[in-house]
């Protein structure tokens, strides 16, 4: 290999022995890993035993929370990591749900796994198709006003809503597609709301782990770099368009998985699941939970779905007012989100310092 410029820059002036970078001893690293993952493990264990202790309506509420957690985390790949303000993420959620339902009802595909893979492929294709025009109007990241990208993605979602309304024979029109049964896993076990809880838990846990790996990988750090300073990333040799485009597809695909789980969960899919209202909810989930914390949208989903549930019990008619109130409080008073606050608290309690 040719001499590298840094060696030349070092020159004879200050050549030092280049020591290997400090890597923690194996034992303590394993311990650190364990400590870092402890909360996730505890939560996973709690979720595994939860259905044995709570009534079925709580179990179903938690199922919904997990689905929306995946929905939020998938969107945060774009917004929190890439800094890309998509306003059409619900389009992927609803589209995934519709594809799932249509495949079952009109396509006769009963097997859950086949269905899931098809949903992922088809939503990824949707992302690939919409991403090309969408990123034509999106200039160089945060230095440009993202308004046109926001409007284009919003328009895509609303366009899909109109398509779903008018393609009545396939989608059931404005009343929606109903009669989606619980999934058939192809292993002879029939699924009910109790076992569906565990299926959702498993799928969401795997997806969250995969997304976690992605955002901490080489690819994920390139995405963070684009968020921070896209111009510099280009100057450093990164094809930033390709990163943004692929992240749009990846986020859409996981959003589609969430939609698919949601379709099985409720048994129905309505056009508005793809529209502005749903996009607003997922954005709220992300901002409320903290876009800058990986698990933030999970917290956001728990709060928003929880409040939605309470509202549906005590004042179902006033949900939009409650949601608007939460939005105002979050955006005006805790724009960094509660995830950041919780993380600081966690560090204070367990590490003695806030970082």
């Amino acid at each position: 290999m040719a001499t590298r410029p840094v060696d030349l820059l070092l020159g004879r002036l200050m050549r030092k022995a280049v020591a290997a970078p400090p890597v923690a001893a194996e034992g303590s690293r394993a311990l650190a890993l364990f400590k870092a993952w402890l909360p996730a493990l505890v939560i996973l264990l709690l979720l595994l035993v939860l259905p044995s202790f709570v009534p079925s309506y709580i179990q179903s509420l938690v199922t919904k929370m997990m689905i929306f957690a995946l929905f939020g985390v998938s969107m945060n790949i774009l917004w929190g990591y890439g800094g890309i303000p998509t306003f059409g993420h619900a389009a992927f959620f609803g589209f995934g749900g519709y594809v799932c339902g249509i495949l079952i009802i009109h396509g006769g595909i009963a097997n859950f796994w086949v269905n899931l893979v098809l949903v992922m492929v088809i939503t990824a294709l949707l992302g690939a198709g919409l991403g090309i025009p969408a990123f034509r109007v999106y200039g160089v990241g945060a230095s440009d006003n993202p308004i046109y990208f926001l409007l284009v993605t919003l328009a895509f979602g609303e366009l899909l809503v109109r398509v779903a309304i008018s393609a009545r024979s396939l989608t059931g029109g404005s009343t929606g597609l109903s009669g989606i049964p619980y999934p058939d896993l192809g292993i002879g076990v029939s699924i009910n709301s109790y076992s569906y809880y565990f299926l959702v838990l498993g799928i969401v846990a795997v997806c969250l782990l995969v997304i976690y790996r992605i955002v901490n990988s080489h690819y994920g750090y390139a995405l963070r770099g684009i968020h921070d300073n896209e111009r510099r990333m280009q100057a450093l040799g990164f094809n930033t368009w390709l990163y943004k485009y692929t992240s749009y597809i990846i986020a859409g695909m996981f959003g589609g998985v969430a939609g698919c789980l949601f379709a099985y969960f409720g048994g129905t899919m309505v056009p508005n699941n793809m529209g502005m209202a749903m996009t607003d909810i997922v954005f709220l989930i992300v901002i409320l939970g903290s876009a800058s914390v990986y698990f933030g949208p999970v917290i956001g989903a728990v709060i928003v779905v929880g409040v939605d549930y309470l509202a549906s019990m005590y004042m179902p008619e006033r949900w939009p007012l409650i949601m608007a109130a939460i939005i105002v409080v979050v955006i005006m008073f805790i724009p960094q989100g509660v995830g950041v606050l919780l993380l600081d608290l966690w560090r204070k309690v367990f590490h003695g310092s806030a970082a």
Partner: protein
Amino acid sequence: MAALLEVSGLSVHFGGLAAVKDVTFSIEPGERLVMIGPNGAGKTTLFNLLTGQLKPSGGKVLFKGQDITHKPVYARTQLGMARSFQITSLFPNETVLTNALIALQGTRGGRYRMFGVFTRDKVLRSAAQELLESIDLWDKRSETVSSLAYGETRKLEMGLSLASSPDLLMLDEPSCGLTPTESKDITERINTLGKKITVLMISHDMDLAFGVAERIILLHFGEISCEGTCDEIRANQTVKDIYMGSHKASTAGG
């Protein structure tokens, strides 16, 4: 020997203002070429044209014999160009180490790897250590960039542009806003780079310019007004008239 960079008839205008007009020059491998000119002369704009941030309205850029006039920014970096920015352009929310890691990753394989923990990539980390030690920032590796002193951010700015092991290093006012001592430091660093790296530098700071340059180009109102060795430029009446005056004024001003 073939020129490393050949620029011919390069122009761009913003509305009615011709910011760069019919600029033609070339750089030989290993050369140190410094571009001077009063504020607003179009130097940064010319850099933006050369690196692809801006599309020219006319003219041609050849790099290593290839026509790169319409190539995107990242592709030029892959070919061996690198630049620093006059206005410091880093990743403010990341640590110094992560800045270096990201910069080093730009021209290496595995940029699209989705599995594997980036901050624990051993190859990248040892390269980052070398890079940061070479700019005296290894001790600051765990600090967030937004908490660095200004002089340190300028060093990192230059460090990031070196990360891709470029053949042509383009520095836009590397000493911008630095104290004379810090600026001298920069001169020294550039002079230890070795002839494998060709340097094209913009400088407002005449000491830095004369300390580095083998050849100097004066840009004025977007045009090359004159060109020569340091001595020729020192003696040139045009330079004295249009540049030295404003240089003195601007140093006095800030």
